[in-house]
């Protein structure tokens, strides 16, 4: 790496500080809002309180919301990991006629505006006579998230030498054994990071859930409706708790990936 002069170094630090504050200042202000005694945030904060945090943690409504959001996010994570794994293998391991075309089409939902996608799915569900609930939200989330997990796992699948699978097979391994002993362990870091993404994207998703959860409410959906009418600092308090939860999850995921990575 090149040695930089004093002035360049200062400029780089400044740049870093500006970017970080742009990214995290909003989060910090939400944090302040959640511990303010006043109903509306104003600086400087006159009196601090933990009552909103306590309310957020103890509220039965919140428990139910968290449970629904968790049910959706966990289902989406598991399903999108499985779909992504096989999808990635289909891309990276097999030559078939419309592979290139399929590869492009499958990514389209990512570029679709989510509100439009949500509405389209709602129309479909009602056309098919399916009552929207948290289960339909799982399907809706999958339409958007499964392509992302497929992409993440495919990057990993492309990077590993197909000769590894051929060699295992050549030495007597059955298709299932090759999958279990070679393919799965080598793709595992990709699968775990895909799972992390899937969980976080599903957990925080608002536009798709808004249209497709029906009478069930997820955390983001409820937060939005309370922001529109009936704001209390319990909302930023919940937001902060959610961010802390996500951060812990990412940390666990990173440790897991570090532990699994073959040192190559």
């Amino acid at each position, binding site marked *: 790496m090149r040695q930089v002069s004093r002035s360049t170094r200062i400029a780089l630090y400044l740049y870093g500080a500006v970017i970080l504050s742009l990214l995290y200042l909003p989060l910090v202000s939400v944090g302040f809002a959640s511990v303010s005694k006043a109903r509306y945030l104003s600086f400087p904060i006159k009196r601090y309180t933990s009552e909103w945090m306590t309310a957020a943690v103890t509220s039965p409504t919140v428990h139910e919301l968290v449970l629904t959001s968790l049910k959706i996010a966990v289902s989406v994570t598991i399903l999108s990991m499985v779909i992504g794994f096989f999808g990635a293998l289909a891309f990276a391991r097999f030559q078939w006629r419309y592979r290139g075309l399929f590869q492009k089409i499958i990514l389209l939902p990512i570029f679709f505006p989510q509100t439009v996608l949500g509405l389209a799915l709602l129309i479909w569900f009602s056309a098919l006579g399916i009552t929207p609930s948290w289960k339909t939200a799982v399907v809706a989330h999958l339409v958007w998230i499964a392509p992302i997990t497929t992409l993440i796992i495919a990057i990993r699948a492309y990077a590993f*030498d197909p*000769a*590894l699978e*051929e*060699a*295992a*097979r*050549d*030495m*007597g*391994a*059955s298709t299932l*054994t090759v999958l279990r*002993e*070679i393919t799965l*362990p*080598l793709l595992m870091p990709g699968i775990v990071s895909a799972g992390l993404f899937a969980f976080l994207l599903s957990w925080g998703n608002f536009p798709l859930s808004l249209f497709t959860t029906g009478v069930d409410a997820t955390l983001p959906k409820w937060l939005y409706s309370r922001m529109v009418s009936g704001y209390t600092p319990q909302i930023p308090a919940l937001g902060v708790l959610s961010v802390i939860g996500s951060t812990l999850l990412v940390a666990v995921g990173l440790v897991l990936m570090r532990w699994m990575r*073959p*040192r*190559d």
Partner: protein
Amino acid sequence: MAAKPFVQIENVTKRFGRFTALDRINLDISEGEFLTIVGPSGSGKSTLIRLLVGIDDVTEGTISLNGTRIDTMPANKRPTCMVFQSLALFPHMTVGQNIEFPLKLRGVAPADRRTRAIELLALLRLPESYYGKRISQCSGGERQRVALARALAFDPQIIVFDEPLSALDYRLRKTLEKELKDLHARTGKTFVYITHSLEEAMVMSDRIAIMRSGRFEQIATAEEIYSRPISRFVASFMGEVNLFPVIGRADGTPDWPAGAISARPGALAVAPGWTGVLMARPELVRFLDAGQAADFTLSGTLTAEYALGSRIQYSVDTAAGLVTVERPFETRLTAPVGTPVTLGWDRAAVHLIAEAADGTA
């Protein structure tokens, strides 16, 4: 060679879509033989060994081992094992786990697997401490040995090598070529090796099969291929050889279409209308002093001198084209570049390759 071949490849054709990679190949391999298949990229040599181990399927023809057809067996049921070009060592396993992998598949008890892995490490001259090492901690040559140990642990009837040395530097490659030959002698296994280097093939093999565009050009011992190549293609595979086109005149004397070479009367008789090339190896061509004679003589000008270490190579511009001459370093010429010289060689040093009039073999 044994009466009944160990491996019998009969009329094997492999097509990928409309492209024919292998065209009615026939090859017999004896038990315990070290056979090397040599050919340029795209000649079909990799395809052939992939068919042999079962990674790809034959389009037509049969492959038998000890009289049993194996071309219809899936790869994981065949008693063959391939050492891949990339070696295909499992990066998420240790050296020991890699070597034990085929044994684990066979359900061998952990203690027995370990004993065998350590035996194999010793056979490949790797210290026992390597058992717990990661693949990424091994050097190129060590990885090579681990891959070999893993193949030997599988204990196949045939070990197939797909240019495993091609990524290594020259000196390490030379060492491993000799080790591989030595390992072949010690294990008595049948080795089928592919490479694009005839030099590599000559160091190790009992027999060499030269491949060109999906067919065998010549299958013979190293000595046979070196001194009596069947075609210009095989001859040119060995680096610099001098090839002079020859046509038989009506009176049975040679005509030299590329430029006149003086041949002693009676030195070379060719049938009228015969077409082909005369091959003279660079180390068998001499510089003639005044008054010295040879069966074939050719004069020209010394144009370049290249030191190759133990040998010196000269380029001589003659009426019949550029001629390469090689001699030991100790007999280096004192004459400078630009000196007129006379070249000579004898009948015993030449080999005739017949060709059709259009230049094909």
